[in-house]
């Protein structure tokens, strides 16, 4: 068998630097941060923040140029690393949400007495992993980028070293994450064994649509790995604890970016890797979706801490995003399902980041994470309260705020499948969207209809960076709701769905 190695001719891979530009810029930024962190005196550590943010924006520029240069899909390493519209959109999403997270974190980090340098470093590395994930089309690269984005995330969660909760959050996230990826790896190993390849397209080709128990097992385990990332019930258990314990900006980061990354991986694997074996993953996604949104909503109803409630809410949202995947295998649905997922992710990112921005703004004043601390917010901070209202409405899917269109797209692809199961899931989704308002509404109720708990109605100070974050997310949410045409253009990508062409 060594002969095989000997005979394997070496051909140096061609590298498309334009295509790799985002990763390169990001990498450079990471190194730069590391060095600056080493050499700058603490008094001038504040410079790290602008560096981080500009790195992200800088990395976003080539994404744009790539998008505008309609050279179609660029492949590297014989199709194991692909830059197509889909990956570009997702990269853009990651980078921008990363930028917003920087805005959220800026003051938080500067005021917390922890090392700024490593925070930015870790966050950017994690983003790096996500950006790579968007392009990976090979089990190995997917695995690598998954860990690349996860490991720094573990550390970010535990970033407040001396805070036992943060610590707990980190460890739980870490242990379960590793465990999940271990199971996923086992599945991958089986896949490799069956198909004798790690390249998704080849796997897809050789898997075909005929299933054996072992293939099903392999597919299932791989799916589980990502189901963990998107905290789908019953692999969600880490999420609430971690979100609650981790620093708020990190929570925002996890609940938006890393969830999105999980979905990207999932979609990639499913669309490119197992298009044929939808007999396995469709029911799996159906169950996951139903369970996720139901349990997420139901649990959220009982929460008193806003962050924890948001954790469950984001779990539930994950369930909604899963809905279209449960029918993606039906003929002709793949495209609209993909569109729905991407659309929903974009809308969700904008809204949820906005929510966390508000949470941070309010927390700065009330110094409390309890829902009750929002009492009477409208009476003394109408602006903030209105924004929060918009975000909550959007999460609840009420027109004309972004969320409704995300849900609409999801329902649309479900109904377009037209199967009984699809309708049933749609009904479940509908009922859940009503239940969801139970807790979103409870926040609205606090803000509008309840008295101020401690009678302190001094105006809420809003740091400039947070203000910018609020502005961006708020406008985005509104715009996406009123003119969803914009976002759908990004979501309208046939790139991956082509795998279903057969």
């Amino acid at each position, binding site marked *: *068998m060594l002969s*095989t*190695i000997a005979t*394997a001719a070496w051909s140096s891979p061609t590298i498309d630097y334009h295509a790799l530009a985002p990763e390169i810029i990001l990498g450079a930024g990471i190194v730069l941060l590391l060095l600056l962190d080493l050499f700058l005196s603490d008094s001038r550590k504040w410079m790290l923040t602008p560096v981080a943010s500009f790195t992200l924006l800088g990395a976003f520029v080539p994404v744009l140029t790539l998008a505008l240069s309609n050279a179609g899909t660029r492949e590297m390493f014989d199709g194991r690393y692909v830059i197509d519209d889909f990956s570009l959109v997702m990269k853009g999403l990651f980078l921008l949400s990363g930028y917003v997270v920087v805005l959220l974190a800026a003051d938080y980090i500067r005021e917390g007495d922890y090392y700024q340098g490593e925070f930015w470093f870790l966050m950017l590395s994690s983003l790096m992993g996500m950006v790579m994930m968007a392009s990976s089309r090979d*089990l*190995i690269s997917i*695995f*690598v980028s998954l*860990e690349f984005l996860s*490991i720094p995330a*573990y*550390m970010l969660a*535990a970033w407040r*070293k*001396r805070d*036992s*909760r943060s*610590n*707990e*959050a*980190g*460890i*739980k996230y*870490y*242990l379960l994450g*590793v*465990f999940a990826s*271990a*199971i996923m*790896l*086992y599945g*991958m*190993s*089986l896949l*490799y*064994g069956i198909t*004798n*390849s*790690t390249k998704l397209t080849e796997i897809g080709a050789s898997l075909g649509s005929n299933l054996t128990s072992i293939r099903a097992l392999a597919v299932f385990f791989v799916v589980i790995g990502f189901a963990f990332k998107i905290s789908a019930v019953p692999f969600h258990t880490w999420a*609430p*604890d971690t979100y*609650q*314990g981790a620093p708020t900006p990190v929570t925002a980061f996890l609940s938006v970016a890393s969830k999105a990354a999980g979905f990207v991986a999932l979609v990639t694997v499913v669309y490119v890797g197992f298009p044929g074996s939808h007999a396995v993953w469709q029911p799996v996604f159906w169950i996951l979706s139903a369970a996720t949104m139901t349990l997420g909503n139901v649990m959220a109803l*009982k929460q008193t801490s806003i962050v*924890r409630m948001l954790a469950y809410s984001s779990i539930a949202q994950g369930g909604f995003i899963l809905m279209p995947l449960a029918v993606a295998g039906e003929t002709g649905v793949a495209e609209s399902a993909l569109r729905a997922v991407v659309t929903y992710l974009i809308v969700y990112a904008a809204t949820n980041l906005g929510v966390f921005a508000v949470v941070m703004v309010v927390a700065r004043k009330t110094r409390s994470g309890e829902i009750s601390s929002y009492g009477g917010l409208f009476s003394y901070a109408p602006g903030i309260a209105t924004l929060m209202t918009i975000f909550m409405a959007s999460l609840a899917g009420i027109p004309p705020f972004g969320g409704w269109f995300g849900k609409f797209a999801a329902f649309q692809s479900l109904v377009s499948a037209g199967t009984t199961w699809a309708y049933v899931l749609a009904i479940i989704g509908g009922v859940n969207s009503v239940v969801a308002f139970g807790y979103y509404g409870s926040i609205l109720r606090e803000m509008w209809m309840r008295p101020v708990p401690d009678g302190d109605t001094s105006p809420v100070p809003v740091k400039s960076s947070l203000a910018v974050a609020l502005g961006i997310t708020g406008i985005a949410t509104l715009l996406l709701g009123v003119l969803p045409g914009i976002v759908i253009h990004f979501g309208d990508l046939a790139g991956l769905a082509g795998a279903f062409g057969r």
Partner: protein
Amino acid sequence: MFVNQFLILAAVLFCIGVYGVIARKNAVLVLMSIELILNSVNINLLAFSMRNGSLDGHTFALYIIAIAAAEVGVGLAMVLLMYRNRRSIDLDELSEMKG
């Protein structure tokens, strides 16, 4: 060839690892159990790689080993942190947040 024995071995290791993760309260032991799972994966990969006569398996295994090392590094660091904070590495004590 004798792939199956390897696979069975791997499966056994996998199960042991899983058992460890679920049953052990000691953080370090849990870490080790996870390593066990990863190694079972490696065995799988190598076995398949041998059978299929392609190098991807080996490559994959190498990546896994490397990353596993990194993971364990982070993991141990966190456990250390935990020990600093609460003078214990019993996972059951990590239930401040629940519900």
